[in-house]
Each structure stands twice: as structure tokens, then as C-alpha cells.
């Protein structure tokens, strides 16, 4: 596994994603998500919204890293808020 | 072998498809499920077969709860509305398939397949593939597959609806005789009242997922429990005229009055819906208390030996089912005779309160 050149942050990141997926699955199992239409232009389930949230967060990170002087954690904080909004009202 | 449904409901995506159905089917009975499209016939059959699980309630076979038992372990067979056969197997193999799985020995299998095929008149096409056959033959193949094993429950989901009129007549008759000799429960879904009548046996009327009435077919026909059953179980649909009963008179829409006859005496004063079968209204009076009614002809439809006459007066529309060919012009004024002693009366909620006495009880 040495060749995979793991680092703490990336290991943490992937563990986080894995936990998130597992959590979503358990949540879905015990309380199945119903499709709904929020402010997004399409009908979505909980999983869809999470996916859209993560994808857009990735762009947010790229934007902030690439074109501003803010610290990356600013992007992370904004993303968390954005995902929360999306999960609730999207 | 009996099949019992106890308080069975099925809810899909928040929509109720079957609502609290209680039903017992006796061994050796032929049962017709009558209802319009989307009334829940197919859903109910799938529950009986074990293809779907009820959201609520129990299904008992011979008193044993089989609610969760998969379809493979229930001894049933089913014929669909579409002609469902294995397209890549010959007709012979199609019919043999349930027997092969039951590990029947070769000789017995061959005999059974040939017998069944002969019974359904497809013994000359055993080597062909189903898609090379005509629709009627394809459906016979499906039926043969359903009949070849001694299933305890045989389900037919509108099996004849995609077939020619004349073919339907023939197959229907065959079905009747096929099941006379068997001791299994047959269930047959249809939208057509005439088919239910022709098949006889018992009829269960379904409407919007609820079971309205279940009983011997003739009884359900002649004594429908409510107005929806009456409308559904007759073609053309029964004529419904709102009316009011006062002390000794019946009034239809202010203008038409007649004396309460012996038949209707038990009706309490109040508002009713009166039903009269299209075949009971005549062009000549049949009895003394027939009510003469001037009407205007909407349309006369001729069909073989019968005429369906659509007429109206200022207040209501009626359909007459007459035997013989009667030709009328549109808007012609004629007189019809309304049989006051052959009226069904339903209360304002649609429940039957009175049905006409019959000369012959079935």
C-alpha cells in the first residue's frame, strides 16, 4: 500500500466520504427518502441532493483556491453551510 | 383447497390500490372479478398469486397463512392479458415447462402435454415457436401451460381481451367446460359484464380498490347491492332516473307521476334513484302498470338482432335494449313504456332498497 502514498488529510477525506455514504445508506434504510421538488430545477432524493452538494462544493473549493487568497478552510466552511441548505430546501 | 383474503390492503407509493378486501373462494369454484380498468383486479390477482405482498392483512390457503410464501412454493398458475410465453421455446416445451420443473417422468410428461394441447386444440403446432402462431393460438398455449399442472388456483387476467370477438366466444365456452371437471379455484378478471354473465360461477365486483359485492353471478346481476355495481354489471349500463316517493305516488322530475304499485309500496317517502334495465323498457306496453313516456330519439344503434335506442326527454336520457331491428330517425318523437314493476330503487347513498321480483329465480 506504500505506493498509494497516503497522507493524513486525504485518508481523513476518504474516510469522511465513506462514513457519509454509510450514514446515508443507513438513513435511507430506516427512513426511505421521498422524491421532492425544492429550489433545484429537478425532482431530487436525499442522495441526489448530497451528490449535487458535494460536486458544487468541489467547485467552490477550486474557485477559492485558484482565484482568491482565502484559506481553504473558508471554502470548507462555506461548503458545509451550502450542503446544509441544499439538503434542507433543495 | 380454499383461498381466503383477510382485510387485505395494498398501498403503493402512498396510493391505495386495494383497500380492505375480505374474500373467500371455495374449492372448485369459478370466480369472476369484474371491474373497470384500474379498479384493482390485477393487483388483487397478484396478491392471490403471491407475486406481490399485501401492505396489510393476511392470505390463507386452507386456513394456513401463506402471506409471505413466494410464488414458486404456492401451487398456482396464471394467464395474462398479453400473450406471455417463452418465445425461445417451442409450444411443446412451453407447455412442458412446469412439469419438467416438477420432475415428472418422461412418459407421463409427454402424455400430459399432449392431452392438454389436444384439449385446447393446439396439438398440431407443438413443434412451432409461440411467435409463429396467431394470437388465439398463443393464448391457448399460455392457457395450456397454466392448466397442465394441477394448480390449486388458476388465475386469468383478462385473457381474452386481445382476441377476436368470435374467438373469445369459443374460448370462453371451452373455459367453462374445462373447469367443470376440475376441483381447483379459478379466478377470472374482466371488464365486460357480458363476459362475467357468460362465464357464470361467482362474481366479485371491484371498484376503486374496494370489493363492492361478491356472490353467485346471477344473484349479483339481479340483486346488485348498490348503484355502482348495478351500473357496472350491465351493458348497456342500467338507466338511472332520480325520483321522489310521496304517500302514494312516484314522481320523476316534476312531470312524470305514477301510482305506487304493490311492488314499490314498501318504499318510504323520500328521494331515490330508480334503476331500470335497458332491456326492460319497451316500445309496446307489456303490462297494465307500464308508464307511457314520450321521448325524442337520439340515436338508434343496430347490432345483429338487437337495437340499442338512445332516447331523451327534457329531464333524463335513457337507453333501450330491444330485440329485433328497429330503425328510427334522429329527433323522431316516439312513445316508450316504462315498466314500473321492474324498477330497482337505490337510496340517496346508492344502496339498493328494492329490486323487482323475478318470475324465475336462478
Amino acid at each position, binding site marked *: 500500500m506504500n505506493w498509494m502514498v497516503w497522507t493524513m488529510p486525504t485518508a481523513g477525506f476518504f474516510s469522511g466520504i465513506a462514513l457519509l455514504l454509510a450514514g446515508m445508506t443507513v438513513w435511507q434504510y430506516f427512513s426511505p427518502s421521498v422524491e421532492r421538488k425544492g429550489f433545484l430545477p429537478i425532482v431530487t432524493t436525499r442522495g441526489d441532493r448530497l451528490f449535487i452538494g458535494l460536486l458544487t462544493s468541489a467547485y467552490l473549493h477550486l474557485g477559492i483556491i485558484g482565484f482568491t487568497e482565502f484559506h481553504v478552510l473558508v471554502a470548507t466552511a462555506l461548503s458545509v453551510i451550502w450542503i446544509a441548505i441544499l439538503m434542507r430546501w433543495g | 383447497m380454499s383461498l381466503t383474503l383477510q382485510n387485505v390492503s395494498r398501498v403503493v407509493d402512498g396510493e391505495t390500490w386495494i383497500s380492505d378486501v375480505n374474500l373467500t373462494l371455495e374449492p372448485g369454484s369459478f370466480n369472476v372479478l369484474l371491474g373497470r380498468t384500474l379498479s384493482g383486479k390485477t393487483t388483487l390477482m397478484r396478491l392471490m398469486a403471491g407475486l406481490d405482498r399485501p401492505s396489510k392483512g393476511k392470505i390463507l390457503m386452507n386456513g394456513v397463512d401463506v402471506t409471505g410464501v413466494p410464488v414458486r412454493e404456492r401451487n398456482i398458475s396464471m394467464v395474462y392479458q398479453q400473450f406471455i410465453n417463452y418465445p425461445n421455446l417451442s409450444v411443446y416445451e412451453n407447455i412442458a415447462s412446469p412439469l419438467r420443473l416438477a420432475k415428472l417422468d418422461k412418459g407421463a410428461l409427454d402424455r400430459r402435454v399432449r392431452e392438454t394441447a389436444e384439449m385446447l386444440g393446439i396439438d398440431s403446432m407443438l413443434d412451432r415457436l409461440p411467435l409463429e402462431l396467431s394470437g388465439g393460438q398463443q393464448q391457448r398455449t399460455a392457457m395450456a401451460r397454466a392448466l397442465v399442472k394441477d394448480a390449486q388456483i388458476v388465475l386469468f387476467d383478462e385473457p381474452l381481451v386481445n382476441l377476436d*370477438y*368470435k374467438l373469445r366466444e369459443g374460448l370462453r365456452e371451452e373455459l367453462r367446460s374445462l373447469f367443470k371437471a376440475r376441483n381447483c379455484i379459478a379466478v377470472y378478471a374482466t*371488464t365486460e359484464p357480458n363476459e362475467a*354473465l357468460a362465464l357464470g360461477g361467482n362474481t366479485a365486483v371491484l371498484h376503486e380498490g374496494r370489493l363492492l359485492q361478491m356472490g353467485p*353471478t346471477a344473484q349479483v346481476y339481479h340483486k346488485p347491492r348498490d348503484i355502482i355495481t348495478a351500473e357496472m354489471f350491465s351493458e*348497456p349500463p342500467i338507466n338511472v332516473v332520480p325520483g321522489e316517493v310521496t304517500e302514494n305516488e312516484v314522481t320523476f322530475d316534476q312531470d312524470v307521476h305514477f301510482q305506487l304499485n304493490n311492488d314499490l309500496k314498501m318504499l318510504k317517502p323520500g328521494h331515490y334513484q330508480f334503476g331500470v334495465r335497458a332491456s326492460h323498457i319497451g316500445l309496446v306496453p307489456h303490462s297494465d302498470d307500464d308508464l307511457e313516456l314520450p321521448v325524442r330519439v337520439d340515436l338508434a344503434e343496430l347490432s345483429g*338482432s338487437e337495437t340499442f335506442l338512445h332516447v331523451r326527454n327534457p329531464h333524463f336520457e335513457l337507453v333501450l335494449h330491444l330485440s329485433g331491428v328497429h330503425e328510427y330517425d334522429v329527433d323522431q318523437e316516439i312513445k316508450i313504456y316504462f315498466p314500473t314493476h321492474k324498477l330497482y330503487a337505490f337510496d340517496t347513498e346508492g344502496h339498493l332498497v328494492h329490486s323487482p321480483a323475478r318470475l324465475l329465480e336462478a
Partner: protein
Amino acid sequence: MAQITLNSLAHSYSANPQGPEDYAIREMQHVWEQGGAYALLGPSGCGKSTLLNIISGLLQPSNGEILFDDIRVNDLKPEQRNIAQVFQFPVVYDTMTVFDNLAFPLRNIGVPEHKVKSKVYEVAEVLELTEQLKRKAKGLSADQKQKVSMGRGLVRDDVSAILFDEPLTVIDPQLKWKLRRKLKQIHKQFNTTMVYVTHDQLEASTFADKIALMYEGQIVQFGTPRELFESPRHTFVGYFIGSPGMNFIRPELTSRGLEFEGQLMPVNEEMIEKIRKLGTSNIKLGIRPEFVHVWTEANDDAFEVTIGDIEDLGTYRIMSFMFGSIPMKARLHEDQKVPVKNARVSFPEQWLKVYVDEYLLELTHE
């Protein structure tokens, strides 16, 4: 508007047909008059759809001509024949609204938009589609789609004919009732030649003034519903029309007349003479279940039979019985008394039809 004439028309799907069995349509001569409502009735595979497609031009007949009024249209393509056709399964243009669907045939021939609008509204009104006009055709239910399909056939008022190919197959029974009525009204209103293909005798005789009954690529009888019912010209007509169909027995020609299992059948002398002259052994007697007379008491003309099943069909009942070795049926009125085991039936002479080589034998002076 046109009269449609089929002149020695025949069609075969095989390139070089050998015998008559290779023909989907066997040579025929036929006229559909302008403004009539016709039905083309027959079991599946009898060639009725083939014939319809030949009229509409989707198929080229291998022999003979087809005339619209007196003009030969064999070489004209469907779009040039100026006809409308409604198919068995609804054909709608999914991406268009109902309005655009109905307007489509009009816009294609360059009808001015204000006329399109008024015509579409008129047809939509008749078909009760006004509410749906703004909806996309894709989301409609099957019967609404079929109404749109029909509507497209009805919007053009200059069509030579409207052809229907089992248009009510996908419609719910309750709705069929209404649509049949609608079609009939439309015919009265527009006075266009209409040809309606179906396998359902009820639909055919309800819709049509005259029915052409097809069997094995031939029109075996062309007549009013009443004629088809009362004097079927061919045994197939007897079997196919009426529910249940005609009862048939095969009598023998003896010195006494026509005998069936020792019983003399009520057929008059003149007829028997005629049969003798034809010298064929393929003789059948047919009688409709409606005309079989059932007696409860003994009667001179009646034969004794064994009763089988009695089906209660609500408005009437069907009694099955064995006439000698032949199963037969009689149709009884709802309230008619039925004997229990043995009954006597008689066959009124006027309704007992004689078929020689499957075709009806009639006395010419009648």
C-alpha cells in the same frame, strides 16, 4: 367525398401466386357509395386490413383497379389520394400539443390559420377534447390519444373517405359505447364516406349502414345488419354474425326429402326439387338460436331433444340441447319458461336456411 370502386381487385403478398390460397384478397368487384357508412367485418387474417391499406394507398394491389369516383388511383400515393385513416393503435405526434396534432393535416395542405383554428375547435368540441387542446399529446391516456388520432382524420372536410382500422381496440368498454355513438353522429353530421374495419360484429353493425363480411380474402356478403342476420348468404356469415352463431345440421337427401337422423326436416318441396337438381351432397341446414322455437308441451312439428346447460346472460338465456347427436343452442327470453330435462323444439320453415356448397339456396321467385 367520393365513391370508391374496386374493379377486379386482387392482391397477393407472394411474387408469383399459384392458386387462390396465395391471395390475401381474391378477385372482387365492389362499390362503396359516396356518403355511406360501411363496415368491413371479418376474423383476423381474412384480409380486411389488406383491403383497407389498398384503398388508402399504403399497399399496391397486384391485380385490378381502384377508382375514386371514376378516376383510377392505383398509382397515386396515400398523400395524393386525399383520404384520412385512423389506425388500430393511436398514432399521435408526441411532441406536439393536442391542438397542433389536430391542426397538422390542415397546416400541411396550407389551410389559412384562422380556418385551422375554427376547424380544430369544431372537431375538438365534437370529440370532447377542448379541455385538452393545450396539453402535450404525450401525456394523454390511450383513449384520449385515440380520440386525437380520430380527430386528425376528421378535421379535413374535403377528404374522399375516412378509413378506420379497428379504432376502438384500446378503448375501455364504457367509453367504447360513447365513442361508437359519437362516430355515428359524426357521420350524420359530415356525410363523408366512412369505411370501418373491425372483427367485432357489434361494432360493425352499430356503426355501419351496410356491412361487407370478409372471409378468406373474399367479401362473402354485403348487406344491412338485418340482412346479414336474417338471411346469411354463406355458412360463415351464419356462424360469424350473431352470438351465439347459427346452428348447423347436415341432413341427407332421401326420397322423403331432407332427413336428419331419421327425422324429416321442414323444407318445402320446391326447394327439395332444386337441391336434387344440383346433385351435390354438401347440404347444410342452418337456423339461428333466436328462431329455434321451444315448446313445453307436445306439438306436431316439434322434435324431442335433451336439454344440457342453461346460461343466464341477464337479459336473455341460452339453452344448449342435443338434437340427436348434434349440440345446438336456442336463445330464450329472460322470463320464458324452460322445461327441465326434455324439451320439444321446432324449426320454423321460414328461418330454416338451406346451404348448398356453403352458399345459401334461395327460391328465385321470392
